[in-house]
Every structure is written in C-alpha cells, then in structure tokens.
C-alpha cells in the first residue's frame, strides 16, 4: 500500500487508508439523504452535516476579516462536541477563486473532525505552530510528525471529497485546463493540479481500489450521465 507525499512530507499507510475510508463513509452518508448526490460541485454544507451526524459534532463556520500571509484558516475542537472553523476572508484577488478557497479550507478543517484521533489532539496551538514550522522539511524517509501528518491527511481528504476520484480520468482525457476544471468542482486550480498529479493519482487509485467503493454515486455510477 502506498504512503503519500506532498513533496516534502510522508504519512503512514494505515492512517492514509483510514482517512480515505472516512471519505467513503462521508460520501455514502450524504448520498442517502440528498437530492442528486452526484451533482457538482459537492456541497460543503452537506459534508458538514454528515460529519456532524456521523461523528457527533455541532460545528460553526466563520469568515474572518484580517490580514495574513500564511494563515488560511483554523479549527477549534471542544470536549463538549462543539467545533469552530475560522476562515480568512481574503484568500485570492479573484473573487470567484476566493470563494473556491473558502470551500476548500472549510472542508479541510472539517476533515480534521472526521479523521483525527485523540493522539492527534493538542490544545496548545502555539506548540502546534512551532512543530509545523520546524518539522515540515522532508528528511530522508522519516515519517512526518503527528502535527504534519494530520495536516497532510486533512488536505488529502478535502481533495478527495471536493474532487471525487470518479471524475478524474475523464478530466485528464478531456485535456481541459485546471483553471477551467476548477469551475466545475468549485475548488482552487491548485486542488485540480494536485489531484491530477501523477503521484496523487497513483496513490488515490491504489487506495480506492483497495477500499473497493468510491464516488458520489457509488461504484458503477455514471456521474456524467
């Protein structure tokens, strides 16, 4: 089974497979309760609702107007089952792409609530920031620290939720530009480029094959039809 790399960090296979199974669980849950589950773009609100229902949370999301170069968003989780997602309002000069970033950041932060285990928790955010900055650099084959693993996994889960695997091969064959495809899925072009990269596709194909079911419409669905 493959590990995953984003070019600088690696995550454990077992955690990766578990994270992808959560994507499948969330898609399946949403599919049972929505009209036209294979309609694009994927609904962030339905994804949030599925995470709330399946994992027992009450989640709020906020757009926050502040200046920053690095922080795109953050998430607070409380012991009483509440969680708050904060997203920086200004992400991109292009207003449409800005909105796509809001969607992606929201799902990335929501994903933490589905995939993180207690061993991944740390209330001391200043320590987490320290670890993120200090330990993101790839050193040989050393697996990434917990803080990095969690971030990498949450981003992978957000990619898989918002740009489902079942659409990608046709997209590759279409020859359409990432900036064009991004409009279909409501994600930043970065997400399309990342999802369609050789490394990500190889890893995702292997995992979805192993999990044995995927997609908004499930195996055998024809989302384009």
């Amino acid at each position, binding site marked *: 089974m493959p590990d995953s790399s984003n070019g600088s960090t690696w995550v454990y296979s077992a955690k990766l497979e578990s994270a992808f199974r959560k994507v499948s669980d969330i898609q399946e849950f949403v599919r049972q309760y929505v*009209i036209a589950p294979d309609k694009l773009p994927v609904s962030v609100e339905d994804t949030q609702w599925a995470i709330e229902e399946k994992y027992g949370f009450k989640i709020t999301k906020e757009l926050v107007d502040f200046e920053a170069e690095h922080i*795109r968003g953050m998430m607070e989780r409380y012991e009483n089952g509440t969680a708050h997602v904060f997203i920086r309002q200004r992400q991109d000069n292009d207003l449409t792409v800005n909105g796509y970033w809001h969607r992606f950041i929201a799902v990335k932060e929501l994903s933490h609530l589905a995939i993180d285990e207690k061993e991944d928790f740390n209330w001391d955010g*200043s320590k987490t920031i320290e670890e993120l900055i200090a330990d993101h650099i790839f050193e040989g084959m050393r697996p990434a620290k917990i803080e990095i693993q969690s971030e990498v996994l949450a981003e992978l889960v957000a990619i898989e939720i918002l740009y489902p695997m079942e659409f990608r091969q046709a997209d590759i064959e279409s020859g359409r530009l990432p900036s064009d495809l991004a409009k279909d899925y409501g994600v930043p072009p970065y997400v399309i480029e990342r999802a369609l990269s050789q490394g990500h596709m190889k890893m995702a194909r292997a995992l979805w094959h192993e999990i044995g079911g995927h997609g908004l419409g499930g195996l055998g669905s024809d989302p384009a039809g």
Partner: protein
Amino acid sequence: MVTSEKEASMKMTECMSLAGRFKELAGKGLVDVKFYVRNLDEASTEQVCAEVNALYAAREGGKTQALDFGDSRRIQA
C-alpha cells in the same frame, strides 16, 4: 545588540500571547486546534503566531460573519 534583544523579546510576545490564549481556552474545554498554513517554507513561528493573534483580534472586533455556503441539497424531513 540591545535592539536585537528587544526585537527578540517583542517577537516572543506574539507566541507567548497566543499560548496564553490557548491555555485560557483549554480551561473552557478546548481539546484541539488545527491550522491551515500556506507557504510553510517562508513562514516563521512568530509570524504565524502573530497572524493567529490577528485572527482572534478581528473576531473580537466584530470583523467576522457566519459562513453558510447555501449549497445543501439535503432532503428536509
């Protein structure tokens, strides 16, 4: 030398301030906090702490709005 020590002290304040905030939130039940940080290669710890402090300051200043994408296709019971 005095200036750089002073600068170091000022820079430390951002992460110390943030650590204090999270300690206070932990007392209110915070168990985990996660961040989405872009360009980790170009970020410093103090810079990121300062930005998170700015986020909280903006919230406290009312520069925030509830976010609902309005994209639900759920069947309402």
